[in-house]
């Protein structure tokens, strides 16, 4: 059973992703800010993180990704960005900090599952 961590400051989005993924064989964890996301990632070592970018606090999604990828203990975790910022430059920055995939909001729940599975298979 794969472990997926959902990171988003908006409760509606966290719930939406959770509901979307509950039909699959996943263990779902969730965090509402960057700090929390890092702590859970360290402790639980999920297989994949669905990461929002624009979050309140000093650690945004990009910083979370950067830290995960620069830490040997967490570098192997698949990071998938899920952001409302969908311009080319945003995607490029996401790739630059080490994200494995970049999905934009709004999204289709059905398509999201397929994409996540594809990313996991690729790895």
């Amino acid at each position, binding site marked *: 059973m794969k472990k997926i961590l959902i990171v988003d400051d908006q409760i509606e989005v966290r719930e939406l992703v959770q509901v979307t993924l509950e039909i699959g064989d996943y263990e779902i964890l969730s965090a509402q800010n960057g700090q929390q996301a890092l702590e859970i990632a360290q402790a639980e070592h999920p297989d994949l993180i669905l990461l929002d970018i624009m*979050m309140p606090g000093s650690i945004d999604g990009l910083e979370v990704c950067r830290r995960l990828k620069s830490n040997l203990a967490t570098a192997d975790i698949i990071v998938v960005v899920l952001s409302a910022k969908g311009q080319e430059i945003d995607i490029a920055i996401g790739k630059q900090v080490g994200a494995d995939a970049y999905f934009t909001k709004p999204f289709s729940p059905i398509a999201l599952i397929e994409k996540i599975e594809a990313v996991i298979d690729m790895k």
Partner: protein
Amino acid sequence: MSNYRKTKAQLIKELEQLQQKVTALEAPQQQLEQGSLLLLEYSPEKCQQKLLALHEVGCALTSTLAIPEVYRVIYREIVQRLLNAPYFLLAMFDEATETIFCGFAVIQNEEVNPEQFEPVPLGEDPLSETIVSRQVHILNLPVTGLSAHLLPAEERWQPRPAIYIPLISGNSVIGVLSVIHSQPVAFRNVDMDFLSLVARQAATAVTNAQLLTKVQHYAKDLEARVTERHRVEEALRESEQRFRLVISSISDHIYVTEVTKEGRRINLYLSPHVESMTGYPWERFMADWRFWPSTVIHPDDRAAADAQAAQLLQGHNSEVEYRLVRADSKVIWVRDSARVQTEGSSKITYGVVSDITERKRVELERAWLTNELRDVNQTLDERVRARTAELQAILDAVGEGIVVTDRAGVIQYLNPALERLTGYSEEETLGGTPRMWSSGRQSASFYAQMWQTILAGQTWRGELVNQRKDGTFYDVVLTITPITDPGGKPLGFVGAQHDITPFKQMDRLKSDFISTAAHELRTPLTSIQGFSEILLTRQLDEERRKRFLTFINQQAEALAAITDDLLSLSKLEAGKGFEATDIPVDLKEIVEEVLFGFREHNHQHHYVVSGPASWPRIKGDPVKLAQLFKNLLSNATKYSPDGGHVMLRAETETTYDLLHLTVTDQGIGMTPEQLSHMFDRFYRADASNTAIGGTGLGMSISQLIVKKHRGKIWVESEYGQGTTVHVLFPLPGRPPYVLIIEDEEGLRRLQQISLELEGFTVLPAEKGQPGLELAQTCLPDLILLDLNLPEMSGFSVLDNLKNNHLTKDIPIIITSALDQPEEIEKAIEKGADDYLVKPYGMGDLAIRINRALTETKRETSA
């Protein structure tokens, strides 16, 4: 020359005369030979014998004229043949020195070198006696005198028969024949006579030989001298020819002049070139030395020539340049170089006069050209200076930051605009390089491409981000133009920085807005799309269905709110969207209505309203006013923590006919930086904080709404301490307020009374600072500002008013005793609307105030 020729002719003549003499001398001998009959004596036989001998001796003696040969003949014919003696000495006598020397000697029949006999002076010996007495001596005594040397020393004491015969030529005794026998013999007197005759003949022969030798020597010498003369003459001729050739081959005029002690001058030599140089005949200069200085030398230069003459007279060499006036009136320049040599009491001057007209012409031309060039340079310098000053003024005035660097990029010049742009002073910038502004925002290849372009002599233009001294960034369009030499090689560069930061900021704000707006729109859309798809594709229980539908509904509302904001802003900006601004509105009612909604949705916050029981109504648009309070309360709620208090307070300021509203929260507050951007469109205090949603348009919209109601809005905040938003609205029927800032009390009172009579309400202030405070808090409609104020000057007050968003729109009329145009211009430039020169009539003041207010009103409603 002619002297030499004469001398030679004379010499030849002399030689001829000498030869005649020689011939004459030879004549007696011929006579002698012919007149031998005189010797006839006693026996004809003897006589014949003697005559024969005499003849033979004569023949022998005349056969030669060479002296040694004559001597030898005398010995052979007389001594050997006639006397047969073994010893013989031919003594010669030099009459001038009275010396006897040996001419020929024979010892024991052998001829010996006569030079072995030392000459002896005339003495008492038989030789000397013979010379003195001119008589033949026959002796038989020991031999003495020069002849004694014929004999060996040991035999000289023995008596020897000897005969001494004088050689007489003319009247002189020229020598003695001394003959010594070794055997005793007897000489007879007759023999003596005969010997005398023979001796006379011999003497003549000797004399002749001697003469001839002399003549030959003389002739030879003469010949040598003549040859030498010829040689010298030839050399002289050659030298003179060469000299003339040299003279003729140079165009200079050469002169040799003697200056006597008395100062008289004599031209010893003048080269023919004097003719071609002056155009006057040579003879005129030779005839009168004064012709040159008095006629030919240019009158203006005679002083210089006189000075040279004086120098020469003192024995100093001299070189002078002066002009000559030629016979054809043409003026030429010459250089007269003279050397002087003292010869006895006079001085000889050797001079060369060279035509330097061409050189002078070149010199003059060069001098003229130099002058001309200097003039041109001066003019050019002046023009450059003027142009530089002009350019300087332009460079000082332009808004673009301009630097000039050398080839290496070292800054040589900058204009004031650059100082303002970069924040670095001129001293800090000069000698530095443009790297000092580098922000690190451009890549190395960007700069490499830039350098490649400008080093190739081409202009580079591009946009880049630079950094100021204070660390802030600014955007510029940079144009770098190389200053090139004629070959196109860059000598330096001119860089012009055009500050595009405001445009860039606007651009950034817009693009930030678009991306923020997109984000804000996508966030609710995410829920709407996601949950609706879940609802459509999954079997869900009733509770979850309802829950998801509620999400969808809420997010749809949020979407609508954003859409509304955008529309409001665009309408307000366009000056549209206001309806019924004259309807009296009860703000309290509106506030309560808005708060109802907030309390419904935000259970965590406490909303407190305070103020009078009823609020004075204001005229306005109730919908927009409701939007204003929604915005203010929304911000207060968003930026304060759960459980925080949000207080809304209303206060009537009856003194100034204002309604003062404040919204205070206990939230995160704002930094001064955030506060300064408070009313910027699209600005959000913390854009990355999506927990606090919003479009960044709320405050912009609020400000526009307040302004439309002729009110003011400002914010007080301290980071971490919460924020208070102040809103001032004028109450209906509020008369126009005029703030008077005037330190002269009498004038202030007069203005106040007269304006109050006109229906204005007056806010008096006697200094700048209290005036500024009143301007910010009392919402004056117009300000009367005196320029000559204590502490803070009128211009300073004006600057403060125009730099504050609360007061910058209030019309200002300057009142001042200063009437200089530059003062008025300065005030208008700083933003004053009108300028009244004291003293002025109060009626005039009212008219001006009304005019200013009308104009402002028109602008506001437009």
